């Protein structure tokens, strides 16, 4: 396969070439778990939906997708009329950041975050002064990126495309323990970025029940298959999110729900697909998972499917994440707002 990106660009721009020791940068604007400790504070989740963005060929109308993203960000910032979406981006990222946008490309072109949405996010980052070569859209393998429709020619000028298996990237050489998990982290998340955006998909998962936000981050470690057993009820995902590489770097979670899958996941399964027509955004990924769970559960009820609990895959990890102070799972502590264009 042809190189999907310029090796030198990623190694140099994302700072991987220079690193031999532990991470040198600390994120400037950490949205760490501490910000959720205030019992009075709710986590805001924006559900932004609009018609006629998803095209019949499963691409997005890029312009309208960008507008919906802007509305989502305005709502996320709880902004009055005076502020623009760009201010919200500025409040989350600085021009000095190196931003890694982690996508979930396992299911291929039919059920991965749409490239148009990923590029729209990258364009907003560029707008606040982050150069395109300091933004990387990535997943585990170049092959998966390619199969999900990510093309270096289209990404050019917006972001770099890279994968952990890209030449010169790889995993950290030693495993790191975080609660119940012990894994080698992708160097993109350990050293290549100062800020992380979790860009997952709204979908059902055979083992975890829901795969929307936290589950996408299994793709940052070398051994996710070790933690698939009972992943729906074990603390693996919350523990992963508590590792400093994630906890200190994650700034924003966006779940692509233009197309969702309420059954038959994690691979693409046409019988469980529906057009949800939007996205879910928050700075609290646990809250995104909680909202995703209720959307998928509702859809399963409408289609007379057994509940996640009846199938012994209720995503209890979302509640565990609240107990472990990763974020908010309790709907009464989530401020869900809607947005549209």
């Amino acid at each position, binding site marked *: 396969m042809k190189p999907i990106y310029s090796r030198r660009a990623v190694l140099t721009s994302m700072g991987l070439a220079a690193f031999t020791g532990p991470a040198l940068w600390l994120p400037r604007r950490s949205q760490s778990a501490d910000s959720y400790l205030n019992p009075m504070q709710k986590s805001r989740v924006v559900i932004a939906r609009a018609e006629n963005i998803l095209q019949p060929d499963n691409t997005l109308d890029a312009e309208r997708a960008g507008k919906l993203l802007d509305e989502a960000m305005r709502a996320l910032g709880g902004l009055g009329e005076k502020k623009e979406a760009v201010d919200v981006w500025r409040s989350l990222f600085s021009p000095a950041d190196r931003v890694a946008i982690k996508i979930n490309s396992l*299911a291929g072109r039919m059920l991965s975050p749409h490239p148009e949405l990923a590029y729209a996010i990258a364009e907003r980052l560029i707008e606040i002064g982050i150069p395109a070569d300091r933004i990387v859209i990535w997943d585990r393998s170049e092959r998966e990126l390619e199969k999900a429709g990510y093309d270096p020619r289209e990404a050019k000028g917006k972001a770099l495309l890279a994968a952990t298996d890209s030449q010169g990237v790889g995993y950290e050489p030693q495993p790191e323990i975080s609660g119940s998990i*012990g894994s080698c982290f992708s160097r993109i998340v350990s050293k290549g970025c100062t800020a992380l955006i979790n860009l997952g998909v709204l979908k059902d998962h*055979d083992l975890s029940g829901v795969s929307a936000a936290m589950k996408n981050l299994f793709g940052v470690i070398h051994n996710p*298959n070790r933690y698939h*057993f009972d992943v729906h009820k074990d603390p693996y995902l919350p523990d992963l999110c508590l590792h400093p590489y994630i906890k200190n770097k994650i700034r924003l979670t966006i779940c692509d729900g233009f197309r969702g899958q309420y059954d038959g996941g994690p691979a693409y399964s046409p019988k469980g697909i529906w057009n949800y027509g939007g996205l879910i955004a928050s700075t609290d990924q646990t809250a995104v998972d909680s909202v995703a769970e209720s959307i998928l559960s509702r859809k399963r009820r409408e289609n007379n499917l057994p509940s996640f609990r009846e199938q012994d895959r209720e995503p209890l990890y979302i509640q565990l994440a609240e107990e472990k102070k990763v974020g908010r799972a309790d709907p009464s502590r989530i401020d869900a707002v809607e947005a549209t264009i």
Partner: protein
Amino acid sequence: MDASLNRRKFVQASVCAGCALSMGGTLLAAPGAQAADALPLTKELSDQEALYYDKLDDLKIQCKLCPKECRVADKERGYCGVRENKGGVYTTLVYGRPCTLHVDPIEKKPLFHYMPGTAAFSIATAGCNMECKFCQNWDISQFRPEQIRMIDLSPQKTADLAKETKSQTIAYTYSEPVIFYEYMYDAAKAARELGVGSVMISNGYIQEKPLRALCKQLTGVKIDFKAFTEKFYKETCSGELAPVLKALKIIREEGVWLELVVLIIPTLNDGEDENKSMAEWIVKNLGDQVPVHLTRYHPTYKLKITSTPVKTLEKLRSLMMKEGLKYVYLGNVAGHPSENTKCPECGAMLIRRLGFQTQIENLEDGECKKCHTKIPGVWSDPLVKISG
């Protein structure tokens, strides 16, 4: 890259190692590892259909190779990371995809009663069906195949290369051969045709049906008997003890040569009661002739407990011998006299060992030269059955 030229170079280098080994009778030089760099690398995973799985609804499958019985949805992998569901067909990604090849002395496995002083063409792929916190080879066993090096080497070529390197045996080792079952099985079959034996160095975490079929192709097995409590298997290895006990009995029933290794880790599995019970179980179920290697642990991977004191090993060795085991060796303790094989009847020195160097002294045709006691093991052609 000129793969054939490089392959020739590899073979030449390995043959030299084989020559050193085949000098028998005198102290033999350990050959050391031969790099696999010369062989053709590939980025392509295999898509050979796996054996032993059931198809379920919605393109899901259930693997029946090892006791984990992973239920795997489309596009997902089992726990071992080397078997993937591709649209309802379970595939082995590592068929003919070793990540490492070495010509080792058989003593390194360790197998002490199996063709002493001979060469074992040793191969591994990525992956494992357990996760031992003390794994010495975690950098291959705990990775997916595409995350590390893959060599393109069919089972037939593997057997040919073993023969060319003058290895009497292929050892499936380093990671966990159970998870590359199909590759191991076919390579062992091809090797048998060439008169080369096959030994599996395994955790014994495998289901009965595949194990019985595999035993027909193997000439020896070494099982890492990790401890004698379910707690240890569960908490330290992400495995289970009961299926391993069952597998040990099956290997015995199938008549394949068997040796055991127990890595003794301070505070986790070094209790006297536990090891006494283990020895009792071995004597009762496998017989008193099974060689047991008590090896010294050193901190590695996720376990940071300090190294096992040699005294602990010595104490456990005498305890196990008191329970009736005839051959209990110490491992990872260079130069310790308990590395040698002595006749259990007259005490004559049969095989003297120093590290991986071996000198056969009073052993002839599987008997003690002094008192003619039969010594169990595979002492000549690995395709000839056990003499003890």
